[in-house]
């Protein structure tokens, strides 16, 4: 990120860009791992606790918005991963250990 763009970016964005610079594979944007993991865990937690699962569902939605508005992912990456996470949850529902 150029010096001029760094001054225009908020601190959160600078930190996210730093993490991506050192930890990202700098390649594909699909799948949107942030979104997939967030929604997958939110759905599973909903199975065990409605309130905790709802909190994580809200977090997952905010992560999705951050991913698209921050231009870390295309909108289709995010939508497809949220749907994939839900389908995986449905497929594995009966294998979930009882509470």
């Amino acid at each position, binding site marked *: 990120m150029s010096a001029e*763009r760094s001054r*225009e*970016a*908020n*601190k*959160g*964005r600078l*930190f*996210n860009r730093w*993490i991506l610079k050192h*930890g*990202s*594979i*700098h*390649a*594909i944007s699909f799948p949107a*791992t*942030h979104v997939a*993991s*967030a929604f997958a*865990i939110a759905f*599973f*937690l909903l199975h*065990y*606790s409605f309130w*905790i699962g709802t909190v*994580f569902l809200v*977090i997952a939605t*905010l*992560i999705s*918005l*951050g*991913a*698209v*508005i*921050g*231009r*870390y992912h*295309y*909108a*289709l*990456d995010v939508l497809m991963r949220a749907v994939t996470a839900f389908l995986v949850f449905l497929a594995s529902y009966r294998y979930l*250990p009882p*509470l």
Partner: protein
Amino acid sequence: MRCELPEWIQIGCTLGFAAASWGTGLTSRPIPVRRRWIVTALAAFAVIAIAIAHLCAPFLSRDSFLVFLDLLTIALFLIPYWQTGQFFLAPNPRIQSRLEDFDRWLLPGVSSHSGTERNPIGFMLEMAYLSCYPSGAARSPRRLRRWTEG
């Protein structure tokens, strides 16, 4: 203590990617040998980490060990991600163009910007994107089970 399903999935995925990396040598678009060794080393790291974790089982209670395994799985979550990155050769301009067209149609106001603004909403969205990392550690289903059981 035997491996649980998440550990077997972790081991299977990482070893599968390692095998696939060497398998590209039989195709028309092989990935460089250096990248194949990186994929293999990541797989070996994941398997060794899980094996070492199981060696710790005698020193922990069953519940604590299962929560520890949950956290280990989360920590090893990045291994397949880094492995798949080694398979990337070049972007597909046609697919990129279609994705951008979809964004322009769905979110015309967002796609024209290069990122979040320097304001409280922009900061909140960036923090939301960042929250994926620490919230991962809190997602241990076995830890949740301990909480809900009291």
